[in-house]
């Protein structure tokens, strides 16, 4: 089982849901923080890291001895990461998306692979919870390849919880893609609804079953609920705007540790997701 936790709007409570869900379940479980630009799951799970791997992405290196300056590589590159200027080939490694197109079209075999460092992937454990996260190198602008490296640690025979970045752009798609279920965390405010709609539209394109958690459920208005009903999106959990929850979060503590009555609700949330995934597969 692979569940991704996404939101559209940032700050709705993705990490709160991901970490409390992970800690509530008795099953063999792994949490993967794919918000590699600003990972924060470790602040709550407090894992002991026992393996660090540097992650790289392949980029082209041009052998100007072999190159005939035919420009085929520059023409195929959608991101303009190669420019051919008279008898010079310029590469712009930070623009390269590692598609390999330039190497495939080069008639002279003048292009080989070298590497650009993306960041690191750290693996560890906190009690029974397995933990993986990515840390994007400072200055690196492209997070999807690092997110994919984090996702290589997915163990299909256990429960995997993916904490996705906010938004709806490439990093979010990379985090949600090929997961069994997307849990969208939102809040019942105009801003929450606006970004939820964008998020749900993205999930529809990926054709992944989706359900909602409404955080701070007693603020704002009913528009998110109306939208959920119209779109037939199940509301799987509601969390009120409670000072005790906010205080626990601010100290890096888990809701289920401070307020044990929430554990049952998170177990119920997982059971609901499992049923929806099973139903979708039938």
């Amino acid at each position, binding site marked *: 089982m692979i569940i991704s936790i996404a939101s559209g709007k940032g700050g709705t409570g993705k990490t709160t849901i991901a970490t409390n869900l992970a800690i509530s379940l008795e099953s063999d479980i792994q949490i993967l923080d794919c918000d590699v630009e600003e990972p924060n799951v470790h602040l709550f799970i407090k894992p002991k890291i026992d393996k660090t791997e540097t992650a790289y992405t392949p980029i082209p290196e041009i052998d100007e001895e072999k190159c005939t300056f035919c420009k085929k590589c520059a023409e195929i590159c959608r991101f*303009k990461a190669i*420019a051919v200027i008279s008898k010079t080939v310029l590469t*712009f490694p930070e623009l390269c998306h590692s598609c390999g197109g330039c190497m495939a079209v080069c008639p002279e075999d003048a292009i080989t692979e070298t590497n650009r460092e993306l960041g690191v992937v750290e693996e560890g454990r906190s009690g029974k919870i397995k933990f993986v996260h990515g840390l994007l190198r400072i200055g690196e*602008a492209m997070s999807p390849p690092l997110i994919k490296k984090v996702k290589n640690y997915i163990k299909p025979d256990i429960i995997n919880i993916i904490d996705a970045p906010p938004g709806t752009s490439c990093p979010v798609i990379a985090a949600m893609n090929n997961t069994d279920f997307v849990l969208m965390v939102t809040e019942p405010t105009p801003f929450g609804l606006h970004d939820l709609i964008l998020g749900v539209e993205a999930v529809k394109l990926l054709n992944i079953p989706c359900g909602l958690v409404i955080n701070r459920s007693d603020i704002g208005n009913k528009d998110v609920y109306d939208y959920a009903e119209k779109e037939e999106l199940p509301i799987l959990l509601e969390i009120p705007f409670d000072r005790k929850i906010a205080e626990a979060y601010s100290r890096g503590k888990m809701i289920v540790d401070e307020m044990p009555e929430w554990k049952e609700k998170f177990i119920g949330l997982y059971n609901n997701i499992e049923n929806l995934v099973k139903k979708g597969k039938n």
Partner: protein
Amino acid sequence: MKIAITSKGTDLDSEVDPRFGRAAYILIVDTTSLAIEVLDNSENVNAFKGAGIQTATMVSNKGAEALLTGFCGPNAFKTLNAAGVKVGNDVTGNIREAVNAFNEGKVSFSDAANVDGHW
């Protein structure tokens, strides 16, 4: 000699477009005769990525020896530099004024980009 100037329009009275990669037009101007070749840059205005690199390649292919513009980023500068095109940044006014300033030696050429890259 031929120089390239980023322009908001297609004639000598047009205003210099301060943007390089996503300038509306690039005018290739003969500094002696003031003859103009207009390059429509709309493809690069809407480019997905690398507008500066692409526009720089186009300027170089047209045989311009210098470029006059407002702002030039690092990737565009690197490309123009490789092509041996001198870059005059911070150029304002209309195209005619820019060419006159160039002919009078009043345009200073930079050895680095004058704006940061952006994504």
